[in-house]
């Protein structure tokens, strides 16, 4: 009875103010949301909008809405070739980071005291230098006859002709895997370090071996970390512009590199914006797919309703 009476009452006027003061609901996020709307959403919408209008000397021509740039991009075989390249480089680099990151995160969860701190410092320290510096470091290591790698291999007599690694897909993959490794380790670390060890003890007690316990208990428990790391590293690898630019050489292009070329070099902003729309849209779809697959794989962890 009392419920009905309460529902019938008009909403009280001070409720909004009270909610702000009490910090409930979405309100605490408002400053961040306003910031994102002004400095992220608005510029992105403007940029993407440029893909659907004709620009004349930096001004939008009146009544010039057109799908021409978008269809031009979508029907261009070069664009699809570069999209495919961006995609597979990102998938391979992300998979490699997963295989390299998992043992590190697993080891972290078994370390104690000073060793644990040292490992954490080692994982985070590459983030203290910019990706640009790390890409240049790879140029020094991989580059030509005078690169560290070739010099070592040539002087020890293992090879007699320098290996051609820099300015190939291989260099881009190596660079991307190393540079993005911390983004995979950190989510895995959070999940693996906090996991409930009693499940493993139970598995061992019930007769499963170490290997079976690892694959059937530890790995499934770390799936949320794997999914988060995979989505994160895929997104930054797929849209990365600096690493292909520096390590892939002048013959190498990806979708992100094309966005730069069209916007800065050719000054065709409409095509650049149409390419950016494709890059952003396809990346968004892939992230949705990764999270959907992740949700499917971890559905056992949810309490049935």
């Amino acid at each position, binding site marked *: 009875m009392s419920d009905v009476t309460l529902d019938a009452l008009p909403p009280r006027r001070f409720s909004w103010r009270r909610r702000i003061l009490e910090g409930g609901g979405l309100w605490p996020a408002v400053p961040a949301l306003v910031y994102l709307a002004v400095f992220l959403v608005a510029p992105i919408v403007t940029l993407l909008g440029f893909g659907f209008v004709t620009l004349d000397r*930096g001004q939008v021509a009146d009544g010039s809405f057109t799908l021409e740039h978008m269809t031009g991009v979508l029907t261009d075989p070069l664009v699809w070739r570069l999209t495919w390249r961006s995609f597979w480089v990102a998938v391979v680099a992300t998979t490699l980071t997963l295989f390299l990151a998992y043992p590190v995160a697993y080891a972290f969860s078994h370390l104690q005291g000073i060793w644990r701190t040292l490992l954490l410092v080692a994982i985070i320290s590459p983030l203290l230098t910019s990706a640009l510096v790390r890409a240049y470091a790879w*140029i020094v290591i991989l580059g030509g*006859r005078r690169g560290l790698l070739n010099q070592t291999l040539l002087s020890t007599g293992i090879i007699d002709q*320098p290996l051609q690694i820099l300015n190939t897909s291989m260099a881009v993959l190596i660079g991307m895997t190393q540079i993005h490794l911390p983004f995979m380790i950190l989510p895995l670390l959070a999940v693996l370090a906090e996991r409930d060890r009693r499940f493993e003890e139970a598995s061992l007690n019930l007769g499963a071996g170490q290997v079976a316990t690892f694959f059937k208990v530890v790995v499934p428990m770390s799936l949320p970390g794997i999914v988060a790391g995979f989505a994160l590293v895929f997104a930054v690898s797929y849209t990365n512009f600096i690493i292909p630019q520096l390590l892939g050489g*002048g013959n190498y292009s990806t979708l992100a590199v094309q966005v730069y*070329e069209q916007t800065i070099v050719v000054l065709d902003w409409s095509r650049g914006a149409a390419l950016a729309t494709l890059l952003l849209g396809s990346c968004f779809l892939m992230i949705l797919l990764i999270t959907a697959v992740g949700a499917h794989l971890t559905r056992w962890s949810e309490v049935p309703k």
Partner: protein
Amino acid sequence: MTLSRRHFLGTGAALGAASFAMPGLVRAQSSRELIVVSFAGQLQEPHRWLADQMEAEIPGLTVRLVPSESQDIVAQIKAAQGFSPYDVMPNGEPPHLIAQTEGYIVPLDAAAVPNAANVEPTFMALANGFGVPTSYSLIGIAYNEALVETPPTSWEDMFAPELRGMVGFPRASSNLGLGALVALARTRGGSESDLEPGWAALEELQPVIGRSPSQLIQMLEREEIAMAPIWNNDAAGAAGKGLPIRFIMPDPGPIVVLSMTSQIEGTQHPDLVHDWMNRLLSPEYQARAADAPYFFGPTVTGVPVPDAAAEYTPTTPEALARLQTVDWSVIAPQRGEIVDRFDRTYS
């Protein structure tokens, strides 16, 4: 006229505000900033020398040099929709033409830049009435002495069979790439309006593509490539650091590209821009920029090329006559297509 109280107060407030603002206005007059687009690294030093002189002579003036590629600057001016953050910029001939048609630079006020009268008339004509030619650079061939036994003498020498896979080439989006493509086309009987032989020559050359002149120099240094078309100034900079990189002016002649300094549309300080342009054409600046280690070709008549520049700049009338000019007005309209074709071939 009757003065109401409100009117009186309003006027008083305005006067008060003005008196507060006046010192600010005076300050703004005496402290001004000229923002000049410049070159990167060592090549900026002649500009810095000139800027220091100008700052010493004009009280309150700060000259800020911004090292940047002209293509990035043009993109920024375009993004600013005419409200350029820069006052004056040097452009190679291709972007100079594009900046004219897009309206980013303004025609030269010759009376305000008296030294423009001393510029070599053939060079001055190429400015099309916009800006002044302040230097010239050459596109020739740079090679790594450790890898090339017989130094090249002509453009054709890049095709030597023993160099296969070891020749670098710049992307066609840069002035260097466009100039080198024209040089190849001409070597094989083509021209600015018929670049097809140049494209065929590129296919035969199977070059390693460098994204920028500095990347090509680095590739030469790391011995990834043995030879590449390059700017004389960049090759000189590398050789000056002790690297085994030499520059030649290949037969039938190196490509000459003028650098035009222009006033950017919408500048707040046209007087300072004119002063800057005039000083760039002074014999002192021209001689300094032409000397080691910069080797910017002088555009003012009567400025001698120093002996140290012999490897990088023509010193004799015969060598000057060998310089190959390019009709950029034919290339500029095709630039988008050329870049696109290059992207499709080398991506």
